[in-house]
């Protein structure tokens, strides 16, 4: 089929415009997210049930209980943040040491063959549905932990922060480890060779040459992992309970920001009601926190030393 030059040029321009528009859709999506979260958060803070603006905003940051669905409405965000941060910190306790060990092993020690065998399985771990991890936390890890703690006379609730925290830590590991590994890959081979030629062992090279050279990449990997742990929803919805409280005890039931959204969304939501608006306010908090963490991570990565 032969087309005239004019038609060809027209198709060229049309295709260009079409592709650009499709690319721009992602920007619309971002705007839509920000818009919908912002507008409903504003409506939340001006809703009479919360006391109207600015009372509601003060209550949001000063009250110590979160009960927007009760008759007696309290709207202090701290219990939810407490739960979210506790889960995220527990998961980081698991994923920080394991992530660096696995990344160093895979990038500096393991043979090509081992790496090629292990990586697809790590990728597969990322595709395991989060609700399956939740099931595992609730019905496998929790009973084991309960058995572990009971000889010490410590009672652990069936719903608690510890077991979903551990499971999330392992869940984000493949992601963290592969990002750290990428950072290690960016360290040029000649640095390693220089270190070896001075007689350093593999471990010394990894810890004192490769790791410092890749430190901003490693940090950004951990920050992104932390942000994932904060946004993780199903594991906590299944295994962490539905009890928003301010506590430092990981053996008690808690509720996270994401867990709250799930709890309310499971019920019937009249459009525009106070409960409906409250999940957008909670979601807005979540969005802002993860956005800040991601931005720092991206900034750190961009500052990574180029060799």
């Amino acid at each position, binding site marked *: 089929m032969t087309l005239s030059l004019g038609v060809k040029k027209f198709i060229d321009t049309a295709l260009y415009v079409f592709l*650009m528009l499709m690319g721009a859709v*992602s920007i619309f999506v971002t705007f839509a*997210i920000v818009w*919908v979260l912002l507008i409903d958060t504003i409506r939340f803070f001006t809703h009479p049930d919360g006391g109207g603006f600015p009372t509601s905003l003060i209550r949001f940051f000063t009250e110590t209980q979160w009960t927007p669905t009760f008759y007696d409405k309290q709207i202090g965000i701290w219990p939810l943040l407490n739960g979210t941060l506790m889960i995220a910190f527990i998961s980081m306790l698991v994923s920080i040491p394991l992530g660096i060990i696995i990344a160093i092993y895979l990038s500096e020690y393991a043979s090509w063959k081992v790496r090629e065998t292990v990586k697809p399985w790590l990728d597969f*771990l990322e595709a395991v*549905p989060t609700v399956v991890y939740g099931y595992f936390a609730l019905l496998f890890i929790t009973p084991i932990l309960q058995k572990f703690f009971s000889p010490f006379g410590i009672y652990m609730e069936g719903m608690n922060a510890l077991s979903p925290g551990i499971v999330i830590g392992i869940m984000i590991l493949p992601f963290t480890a592969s990002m750290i590994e990428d950072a290690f890959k960016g360290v040029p081979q000649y640095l390693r060779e220089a270190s070896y030629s001075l007689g350093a062992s593999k471990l010394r090279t990894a810890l004192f040459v490769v790791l410092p050279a890749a430190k901003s990449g490693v940090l950004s990997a951990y920050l992104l992992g932390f942000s994932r742990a904060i946004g993780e929803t199903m594991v906590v919805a299944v295994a962490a309970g539905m009890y928003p409280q301010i506590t430092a005890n990981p053996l008690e039931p808690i509720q996270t920001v994401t867990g709250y*959204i799930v709890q309310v969304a499971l019920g019937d939501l009249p459009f525009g009601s106070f409960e409906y608006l409250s999940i957008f306010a909670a979601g807005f908090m979540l969005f802002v926190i993860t*956005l800040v963490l991601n931005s720092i991570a991206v900034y750190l990565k961009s500052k990574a030393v180029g060799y």
Partner: protein
Amino acid sequence: MEVREELEVRLREFDAEGYTKSVRRKDKLFEVLGIVATLFILLFLFAIALDLLIDGWHRIKDPKFYTSYPSRFPEEAGILSSWVGTVYVMLGAIFWAVVLGIPAGIYLEEYGGKGRIARIIEANISNLAAVPSIVYGLLALGIFVYRFEFGESVLTAGLTLGLLMLPVVVVSTREAIRRIPRSIREAAYALGATRWETLFHHILPYSLGGILTGLIIAASRAIGETAPLITVGALTFIAFLPPAPWEDFVGMLKSPFTVLPIQMFNWVSRPQEEFHYNAAAAGFVLLVIALLMNSVAFYLRFKVRRKYQW
């Protein structure tokens, strides 16, 4: 002189062999630690699969489990409505991911270059990739369900998961296209091809395998997504199927739905232990689907690597 003598003494006394040995031992120790940590993670995966298999075995092997609707009685409950729902929702999600994601990837890699618009879109997509999935659920609830009035339907769910898949599809499309050397394009241009001809005759066919791999990986992650569908109101007790698309396409799109992970979540949250067995069985089905999709993606990637070695 004294310093020199002291140094000589210390040098003579220095146990070089022992030192080397201890360094080697530490090195070996760390390697073992690395192997143990990696095995631990793989063991964790294995434990999950085994736990689901054991808990759900008598439901997994029961053919009625796949052909019955959910029920109040755990022994009679099945996953018919949820797996059919999963198929419909995923077809929708893949459609949107293809329509929106692949063109965006092509634009960024082939046309955008280092221009300003391309840079903004790029930064934006990497931001979207890190947005928690439940926030997509809120977007869907606030915009698709109530403001566009799509309702709590298959259409809304497909669109939501499609948007969730978008960043992965865009990135993998770009990577697949980037692997094609410049010389191919220049050869096409030299023969007088326009950009779209180069794109359709060369770039797309050569990168198709890579794009498909990314699409399958994205889909395998989206299929297990639960949180964003809870907020758009996926029901957990659906004792009917959406109308078949070849009979009533709009009716199918507008139909209420449930999907496998939601059904599983519903069964896990119940206090009766019998329902937990159902949950385990549903989870195992999900796991198998994810494994199959990942294997296909892995195989495709392998084939592509072998076929095109530039």
